[in-house]
Each structure stands twice: as structure tokens, then as C-alpha cells.
């Protein structure tokens, strides 16, 4: 078994290396300016303790056509979900007869900048929560509504709307509150742990090989500043935990549940790795 795993690992390295010279690698030297107005930070100096010198957005690794799609807010299909999310924000749901707007008012005002700073420590749950869990907490406690099931269309649309109100705001999370630091450590451990039959860690692709190709796929640093992202493959909004699970599944490993401790820790760590990049939600990816 160990031998098979090793051989698969070798095969994969060969795929990565062999594909590299055939196509130009590395991130492009372009600026992301949405509608010619909103400049998005796609390169930032890495935070202290980061293994790389510079953090880069996945936008820089995509083709001209995919980059253009994100740079035009009309053409970006993710904006359809932003609009749906705003409708949900203003729609009453649950026994308390409230909408998000009943307490928070106009989402475009209230939410400005908020989404750029999740996940954050939740003193009640004694664990970090992300935007999806914050929505569910509000739904249960204040709206007396059912929490959304993972990846319910309304959860994705509302999360997209909330994150979009931080468009361009640099990502930063507070690691000093509560136990965030130890969750960061846990997430870091997961990031570097090799998994699955392909024996890959997150770092195998996104740290050691970003800019190279895995088959025809141009590997980015795997930063999460654009999530939820409109993925051309699914032609749908894809949530971060959906992508985490997909990526782990592709290593041919059993994958953890969405919002589990393991994936929440990974979200804390990976979000920190992209510190300083502008929020791009809804980004457009391959």
C-alpha cells in the first residue's frame, strides 16, 4: 500500500513537472479593476510568519477571458446571486416575522466591510464562525427560522451578497480574540498534512507548485478572498467548504463535513494566508 501511494505521488509530481514547460506559468502581471472603477488588491506582501514573500489572488492565474468576466460586473454571472441575496436579506422568514433587514436595515450600508473579517471568534459557540454560520446563528436566535442546510441555494446567495459588500476591502482576521490562535495552529497542521491515495497536502499544490500546471489546470496559491466563487465548471456559486471538500476528495481521501472543526480551522488558516488581498466575491474561476 505504501509503495502504491508513493508511486501515485511520483506520477503526480511527473504530471506537474512535465506539464510546466509546455505552457507559460506564473501569475500574470495585470491589474484587476472592476468596471474600470474599483481596484482590487491582487498582490500583497505576505503577513509575518507566511512561508511565501507575496500573496497573490487566483484571478492572476486565469485566462484572459475568465479574468475579463470578473472585471465586468454586468457580465459576471455571480452578480445574479448577489441580487438574489439582497432579496433574501429583505425577505421575512421564521416565527419571529423578521428579515435580516428588520434588525440590520439596508444591507448595502450595514454590511460594508464586514465580510472581509470572517471567520471570527464566537464566544457563545466557543469556536470560530464564518459568514454561513453567522447567518444560521441569526436565523435561529433572532428570526426563529430553520438554519440553512449546507450549500442550500439561499445560503450561497445570501453569503455572496454579504461578502460582496466588502468588495475590494483587504482580507484580515483577528487571531487575538478567544482561542483563534489555536484554531490557526490546527488549520496549519491540516494544511501541511498529506492526504488520500495521491498523498497530497494543500501545500503540495498551492505552496510548492503554484504557477505550475496540474494537467491543464493552472495552480494558484489557493487564497480564498473571492469566495463564494462563480465556477465555470459548475456554472454556479461554489462555497468555500464545498471547494475544500472537493479538493480533499480529489486527493482521494475521505473528506470532512462542512463547518466541521477540521474545516473551520482550515478556513481560519487559509483565510489568514491571503491577508491583504481584496475581497473579490463573486470572483470567477475555472
Amino acid at each position, binding site marked *: 500500500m505504501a509503495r502504491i501511494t508513493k508511486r501515485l505521488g511520483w506520477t503526480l509530481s511527473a504530471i506537474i513537472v512535465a506539464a510546466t514547460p509546455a505552457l507559460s506559468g506564473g501569475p500574470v502581471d495585470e491589474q484587476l479593476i472592476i468596471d474600470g472603477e474599483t481596484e482590487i488588491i491582487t498582490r500583497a506582501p505576505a503577513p509575518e510568519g507566511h512561508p511565501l514573500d507575496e500573496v497573490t489572488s487566483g484571478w492572476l492565474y486565469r485566462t484572459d477571458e475568465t479574468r475579463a468576466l470578473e472585471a465586468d460586473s*454586468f*457580465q459576471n*454571472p455571480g*452578480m*445574479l*446571486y448577489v*441580487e*438574489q441575496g439582497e*432579496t*433574501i436579506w429583505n425577505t421575512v422568514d421564521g416565527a419571529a416575522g423578521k428579515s435580516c433587514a428588520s434588525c440590520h436595515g439596508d444591507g448595502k450600508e450595514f454590511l460594508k466591510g464586514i465580510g472581509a473579517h470572517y471567520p471570527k471568534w464566537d464566544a457563545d459557540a466557543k469556536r470560530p464562525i464564518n459568514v454561513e454560520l453567522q447567518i444560521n446563528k441569526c436565523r435561529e436566535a433572532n428570526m426563529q427560522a430553520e438554519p440553512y442546510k449546507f450549500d442550500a*441555494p*439561499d445560503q450561497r*446567495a445570501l453569503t455572496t451578497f454579504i461578502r460582496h459588500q466588502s468588495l475590494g476591502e483587504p482580507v484580515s482576521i483577528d487571531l487575538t480574540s478567544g482561542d483563534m490562535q489555536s484554531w490557526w495552529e490546527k488549520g496549519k497542521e491540516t494544511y501541511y498534512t498529506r492526504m488520500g491515495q495521491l498523498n497530497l497536502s494543500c501545500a503540495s499544490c498551492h505552496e510548492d507548485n503554484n504557477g505550475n500546471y496540474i494537467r491543464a489546470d493552472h495552480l494558484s496559491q489557493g487564497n480564498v478572498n473571492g469566495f463564494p466563487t462563480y465556477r465555470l465548471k459548475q*456554472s*454556479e456559486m461554489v462555497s468555500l467548504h464545498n471547494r475544500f471538500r472537493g479538493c480533499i476528495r480529489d486527493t482521494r481521501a475521505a473528506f470532512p463535513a462542512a463547518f466541521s472543526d477540521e474545516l473551520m480551522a482550515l478556513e481560519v488558516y487559509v483565510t489568514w494566508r491571503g491577508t491583504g488581498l481584496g475581497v473579490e466575491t463573486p470572483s470567477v474561476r475555472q
Partner: protein
Amino acid sequence: MADNKPRVKVPKKAAKGEVIAIKTLISHPMESGQRKDKAGNLVPRQIINKFTCEFNGQVVFTCDMDPAVSANPYLEFNVRVDEPGTFKFTWVDDDGSIYEAVNSIAVE
């Protein structure tokens, strides 16, 4: 959320005789009829099969769509504007539903 709300981008005003670009986008899965669900059954086709743009009641551009048009269909085309008026955009779904948008334009 069964929300097929269209988005349309039309300039608010144009010079007489100007050719303007119109962009439209509508949320729709464009189910091709080729895809199988988790149980292995073919998911029946359901697409938007026709798009029409009328200006002041006159058809100026239409598009017949087949299942090879991507989900959330996007269309960009041009119209020469000789007078002020109203655009009416119509999308026809396989199930008979019709989605509409209306935009007016001024001419200076």
C-alpha cells in the same frame, strides 16, 4: 429559489441614429437534457429557447437557443436608435414561462 430575474444593460440616452450595445443576462440552469442525476436518470431538458428584443413594438433582434448555450445565458447585441422609446426583452422557457424586462431610452 426559482428566480429567473433578468438583468439588462441599456444606455439611458443615445444620439439620434446611434448604434448602442445591449447586454442581457438571466439566471437559468439551461438543463441540457444530456445530464444524469445522482440516481443515474437523465435530467429532462429545460432551457430558455428563445430571446426577443423589441423596440417600440418592432422586433429588432432575436436569438434561438439550443442546449449548448451556457447556464445563466448571456447575450450582447446592437440596436440603432432613431427615436426615443421603450425596449421590451422576452425570454421563453421550454415550460412555457415567459420572463420579461422593459427599459426606456431617451434620444437627444
